[in-house]
């Protein structure tokens, strides 16, 4: 059967070519959630490079407006991607 891998990528803008500044990969197995870990590197530099590697975007970040011009807010723009993988049923 095929099952969904999910990857969150946080980027510096809504552009597919924006730099990735955060990630989390949720493997399709019964396990602990992904952890903050020493020494990890971003798996992709951009969402576009993840697409080239076979990931599909399933959620795009919303356009932002009306933010407080005096404040720095939410960390990055969140893309959610999926990759279908075969597992033994």
């Amino acid at each position, binding site marked *: 059967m095929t099952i969904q891998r999910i990857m969150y990528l946080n980027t510096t803008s809504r552009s597919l070519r924006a730099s990735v*500044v955060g990630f*989390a990969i949720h493997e399709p197995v019964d396990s*602990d959630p992904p*952890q903050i870990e*020493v020494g990890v590197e971003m798996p992709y530099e951009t969402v576009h490079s993840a697409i080239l590697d076979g990931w599909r975007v399933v959620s795009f970040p919303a356009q932002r407006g009306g933010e*407080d011009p*005096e404040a720095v*807010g939410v960390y990055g723009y969140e893309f959610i991607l999926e990759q279908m993988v075969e597992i033994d049923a």
Partner: protein
Amino acid sequence: MHNNYHSHLLNDDQITSFIINGYHIVHPELQTGFNEKICDSLRSMPENPGEHIVEALPAISVVLEHPAVVGALTSLLGSKYVRDPGGHIHMNPPRTRAQPWHQDERFGRGHQDRDIDHVKQLMMMYYPQDVTDDMGPTVLLPGSQRRIAAPETMVTLVNLRGQVFSTLEAGSVLLTHYDIWHAGTGNRSDRVRYMIKFPFSRTEENVEPSWDHDTENIPEVRMRLDSEHPSTLSRNEYETDHGLRVRTWNNMAGSAAMPLRSEAHLGGPWPESGGATTASRRRRDNP
């Protein structure tokens, strides 16, 4: 109030680093065996004493009153800083999972009521044993003390570019801006990791810098505040974050305040053929 701390005041470069990144590490010279004794005392405690740490562990006063610690706290919070209630002993036993990213609660204030352009409150974290990569070091996101974000927006965040881990030698003291994003990470070792945490507050505004300041350093300070971005900011956030860095200096520096707008704004070399235009040069790698 405190003796012998003047030679331990921070300098302009260290204050600038704190403003940009939101943390500073002190390495107080402690007597041989002091950290081990603290660890022994912690291991023998039948339960966590909550915020009554000094009563349960009087020797911790050596750290709280150490000139290197007092010098750093005086530099960051002014000479009349106070220790607040709410200290805590953190014990991270083997085989724990990481905490999620968070900012500490602001008691009596809304979660989004943060000191984004000042240093009014700090957390002091003392580590009585070496903390290695696998012992669940505290992770910090430099510069995040200037972010205002609801906890709900952090729940999907895990590994972030620029995250810094407090892998430290025994006896190290980590001072953080109260609002910096942080988390305890998972302890994958077979050793317990202790950390003792105390909050401190400023009680009065500075009339002049409370650190070892030299006006001749202002151009270098200005250059760093203008150009160093500790975490990767979104396009909308560059100007705001820059302004908040300068405002933080001004709020701390009293008479040594500087203009908000830099005279060097958009200065520098002409753009090269095939490169980005002047206005977008700094963002050419961040479309």
